[in-house]
């Protein structure tokens, strides 16, 4: 037992000493790992931010039900309550004729002629029910409900308004968001795989450089783990350092960018959200990076040392 402890301590100690003595190689290996781990982290955050932007766009999509002027407020509110019970409905809002007009004026406040026209016509805006669907892909359920004969009768012509051009737009956005999400996930997976390969290759090269040491240790009667252990420890240290650096780099990048582009956003990439998301999940990201770095580092060392530790069988 005591012997085992001594040996375990020696393996860790030798790994640390080797790490320090092979500083130049260590710097190269850590640098490569920092870059790849940073790419992984960056793509995860980008993906989440993109996803958030898509959600926001999707959130703006609603189904409007325009009610006939003959429908009383009580009837309108009753219908609203019914719609609320549908499984795919996220939220419903009932706007009376006056509220709908106010909202219309607000939305078009920069277009005076439209506002004047609406006022002069004696409120042409119908009372409206705004429905936000939970899942854009299943909007058909809501449609089926709204087009039932008795409910359709309460609505003006052209209601509900997802039909026609707008239905097409909704379909397009739904389609696009699905594809964008899939691309995002695939990109993260591809980056992670490529990074793993690059890290593996770097460590394999580092061990290839020292293959003579491995064979010498073998000839002196060292057991497999006594030889391999220090390399595993050394590579795990690479992973650990690289993980910390990658998180720091992303953190620094956010600090720099939030100073430079106060509250701005680059098209689909909302930097403020990305920054918040990163801040909120900081510990989780650090753990993820540490896990990826250490596991890939250690695994690479185990695989890379295998060929030099084999005994001649024939």
């Amino acid at each position, binding site marked *: 037992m005591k012997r085992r402890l001594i040996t375990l301590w020696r393996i860790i100690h030798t790994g640390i000493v080797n790490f320090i003595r092979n500083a130049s190689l260590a710097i190269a290996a850590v640098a490569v790992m920092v870059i790849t781990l940073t790419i992984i982290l960056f793509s995860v955050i980008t993906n989440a931010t993109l996803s958030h932007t898509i959600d926001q766009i999707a959130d703006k999509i609603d189904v409007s039900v325009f009610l006939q002027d003959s429908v009383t407020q009580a009837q309108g509110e009753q219908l609203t309550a019914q719609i609320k019970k549908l499984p795919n409905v996220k939220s419903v809002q009932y706007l009376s004729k006056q509220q709908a007009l106010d909202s219309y004026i607000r939305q078009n406040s920069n277009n005076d002629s439209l506002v004047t026209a609406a006022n002069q016509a004696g409120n042409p805006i119908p009372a409206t029910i705004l429905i936000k669907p939970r899942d854009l892909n299943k909007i058909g359920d809501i449609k089926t409900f709204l087009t039932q004969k008795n409910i359709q009768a309460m609505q003006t012509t052209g209601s509900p308004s997802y039909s026609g051009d707008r239905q097409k737009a909704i379909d397009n956005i739904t389609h696009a968001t699905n594809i964008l999400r899939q691309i995002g996930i695939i990109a993260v997976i591809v980056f992670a795989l490529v990074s793993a390969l690059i890290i593996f290759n770097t460590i394999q090269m580092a061990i290839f450089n020292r293959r003579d040491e491995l064979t010498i240790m073998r000839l002196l*009667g060292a057991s497999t783990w006594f030889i391999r252990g220090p390399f595993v420890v050394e590579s795990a240290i690479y992973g650990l350092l690289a993980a910390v650096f990658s998180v720091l780099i992303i953190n620094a990048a956010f600090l720099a960018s939030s100073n430079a582009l106060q509250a701005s956003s680059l098209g689909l990439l909302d930097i403020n959200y990305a920054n918040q998301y990163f801040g909120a999940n900081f510990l989780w990201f650090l753990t993820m990076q540490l896990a990826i770095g250490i596991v890939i580092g250690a695994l690479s060392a185990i695989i890379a040392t295998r060929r030099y530790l084999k005994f001649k069988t024939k």
Partner: protein
Amino acid sequence: MVGQSGAGKTTLLRLLTREERPTSGKIIIGGIDYDKLKDKDIPLLRRKIGVVFQDFKLLPNKTVFENVAFALEIVGMGNKEIKHTVPKVLDIVNLKGKEDSMPMQLSGGERQRVAIARAIVRQPRILIADEPTGNLDPKHAWDVIKVLEKINRYGTTVLLTTHNQDIVNKLKRRVVTLQHGKVVSDRANSGYSVESGYKK
């Protein structure tokens, strides 16, 4: 053990350290039957045999002390004991004071003596030395041979391969001659000449 290049000296030694496996025949050393050796037993076998190589095979990133200590770390010896044992062995091979040097800073003869220290520090019953003087000039070669003689006097069997007839003739020990992979002579207190293979 003598013989021309290609006679099979190194192959025979590699068979003893189980770097090679025989195509036929049996190897038994100290009661260990090599046929019954499993992969996981090979390190244990090698810990019982000291080996010195022509190209020294020192660990380049370790100091002299660490190179010798490594042989003891492998078997799980405690630090205190290692600190006690290594200087003694370095003394035997006349390398006192070189503990903290790196192999790169040593001459060939010194490096070979570090390798010998490493080979004997576990007190093996057998020391195998494959052309240990092959890369050394005559003066340093004799330093190494003298150390090997000393170790032999302490009771360790030394199996030395060489094609330096000077060394063989001065040592006057048992000489086994190999030719084309076969033993062609085996004589006690013998000499050797490159031309005739062996001489009385």
